């Protein structure tokens, strides 16, 4: 009577032990599923602009009477440092067609702004060939890259504002854009007021959105903010919006990419572009202003404009923006 019981207990124990060997483990499953569940990264928040007043937003430092000859930068100057370094590092845009855009065929960033960067390099080295490094910067990176010295200069469709002048120094205005409206070529719309209560796109959180928000209720379009201006053109081609209202420079690039669009209406807002340079290098600001003045004087600016943008603008090449100095 006791023996079979003991055997049975032994059998039960044996089966429990054997069962232990085969028990399943979900360690690998949990580890891999958790890894696959890694959420997509979120865009870092960009700093918000502050309301700052200044007397003349377009004014910059006066250039020297004569520019130093190429490869003979004044000792101790920032230009001398760049000359010694062997190349100029410029922060640029890589998605603004005709201003600064990556050419997929060549892998180079090309455009009007890049031409200007090359002219600055040419003034330092005698030739831009092999002396320019272009770094595509994101919007939040533009000012920190200058402040931290990662780039020597930023030429990236930056609108000069009083607030931004507290972060970096700006050159004189190298291109005077204006906020305008892009509509389908056969739409018959010639004014933003004609798009009242219709969806009009611009970069989310940008000044053009604020301008639309501030319009009289009867004329006000419905502003649609997308992460980047080019996303507006995608939405436009997909028929999701009636128009795009942003910088004329960007709109010019859009008409060049899509012949079914046109820029209409008067200027809604003045948008002066300046080159951003660290506040630590006023000598470089003066030098760049000297180069810009030279380019505007000798017709190089006009030639570059006609070369890059002439085909997409009607009428003659406009006069370059007049430099304004305050110190």
């Amino acid at each position: 009577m006791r023996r079979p019981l003991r055997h049975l207990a032994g059998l039960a124990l044996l089966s429990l032990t054997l069962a232990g060997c085969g028990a399943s483990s979900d360690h690998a499953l949990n580890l891999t599923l958790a890894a696959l569940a890694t959420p997509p990264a979120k865009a870092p928040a960009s700093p918000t602009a502050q309301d700052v007043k200044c007397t003349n937003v377009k004014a910059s430092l006066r250039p020297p009477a004569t520019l130093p000859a190429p490869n003979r930068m004044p000792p101790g100057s920032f230009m001398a440092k760049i000359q010694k370094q062997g190349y100029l590092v410029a922060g640029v845009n890589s998605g603004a067609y005709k201003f600064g855009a990556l050419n997929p065929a060549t892998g180079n960033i090309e455009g009007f702004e890049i031409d200007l960067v090359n002219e600055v390099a040419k003034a330092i080295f005698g030739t831009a060939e092999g002396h320019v490094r272009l770094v595509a910067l994101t919007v939040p990176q533009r000012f920190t890259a200058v402040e931290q010295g990662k780039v020597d200069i930023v030429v990236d469709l930056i609108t000069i504002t009083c607030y931004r002048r507290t972060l970096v120094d700006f050159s004189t205005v190298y291109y005077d854009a204006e906020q305008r409206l892009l509509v389908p070529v056969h739409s018959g719309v010639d004014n933003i007021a004609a798009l009242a209560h219709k969806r009009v796109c611009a970069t989310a959180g940008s000044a053009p959105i604020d301008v639309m928000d501030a319009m009289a209720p009867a004329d006000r379009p419905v502003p649609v903010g997308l992460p980047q201006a080019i996303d507006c053109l995608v939405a436009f081609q997909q028929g999701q919006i009636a128009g795009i209202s942003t910088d004329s420079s960007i709109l010019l690039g859009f008409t060049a990419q899509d012949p079914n669009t046109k820029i209409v209406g008067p200027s809604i807002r003045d948008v002066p572009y300046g080159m951003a340079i660290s506040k630590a290098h006023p000598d470089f600001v003066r030098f760049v202003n000297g180069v810009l003045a030279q380019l505007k004087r000798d017709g190089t600016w006009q030639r570059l404009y006609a070369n890059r943008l002439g085909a997409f603008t009607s009428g003659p090449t406009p006069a370059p923006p007049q430099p304004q100095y305050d110190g």
Partner: protein
Amino acid sequence: MWLADEDVTLAGLGTGVAPARTRRRRGAGAGAALAWVRDRLATTPGRLVLVSILVVVGAVVFGAIATGAEQSRERAAKAARSQTEPLLVHAKNLYTSLSDANATVATGLLSGGSEPATSRQRYERDLVRASGALSALTREARPGATATAALGTIADRLPTYSGLVETARANNRLGFPIGAAYLRDAASLMTSTILPAADHLYRTEAERLNDDYQTGSATSTLVTFAAASAIALLLLVLAQWYVARISRRILNVPMVVATVMVAAVSVWGIVGLVSEQNALGSAQRVGSDPVEALSAATVLLSRAQGDLSLALVSRGTDTTDPLDFDMVSRVLGRPGGVIAEISVLARRTRTGAAAGRVDADFAAYQAKARQITDLEDTGQTKSAIAGVQQASAISEQLSQNLGGQITAAQGRFTRSAADATSALAGLGLAIPLVTVLAAALVLVGLRQRINEYR
């Protein structure tokens, strides 16, 4: 008058009395049964009748419990082998090929207006493989609202995705930056809508397979089976001991045969269940565990490569992809991460060499990614683009290595899962058959003894 009174009384009582009567009758039934048992207990043949009833009931209960236990294991092992794992493979194929398509097209567009033919072919192969997996899943997936919704999402959005990709290509060929915007749009549709649906399908099947493993190797099933066997054997032995005591015959041949049969089927069952769960355990440990880790690595690697390319395609506008790349690299490469898990699992399968190559290639990939970032930061765009092509080559080599290992692991799964189901072959029939036979033999054996008293 008194008659009428009596009638009234009876009628008045009538309704109240009836249930009481039934109760009494039922009580009488139980009482009668007890009395019947008491009567049987009083005589030896009666006691033998009781014993035969007890043993037969015991045998039937054993048969039912043992069959139930065996069936639950067998169903789980069969489901794992021929239903869940094949579906998991389809879901894995869908997931990896969609991820790969997304990375491939981004890297392809980076190489300029004329996308290399190999890149285009790889993208198309990926889409074909994804559609194949999608229709297989639609055909075979077990019904479930969320799975149906996920399949619907992929089927609905995939044409939109490929439309956006073609628009991106056309614009890219023209040298328009809007091509990059369309590509970003496509990639965001893929990563925010299509891939989460694929992830859901994959996750569902992986968890189902895990459930199959748990059911198929549940200790409780084995214990239940062993306990039922033990009790059935104990009953048989006790019955024979009793019979031997009251009669002079020590051996009751039919009952001995019944006992031997039950003992044999019990041992067979326990051996079968143990080897089934061992085989299923090894199907998991050397089969599907590596498949899952390798698949996760493939998907995450595609995601990293997509991030790397997209960041360069839309340089200067893209703030999230470099961050996502860093995050995915960490998940893959950190201690205890997916790559480390592959090495751990490789020790089980003795495929250390292949896992070592994954390790080395991933280290090379990360070094290349760091180099690309440095090149980008210093404005050496062309070299950075060339770097991404090199990174893509490393990534492709890695994913081929991973793919080869996945195939090998699937082979190991199939073999072990086949072992698991064959370990139980015949048991499902043998247990009820033996139960019935044993019960019949017990009845025959005890009938001989009972008849001796007539």
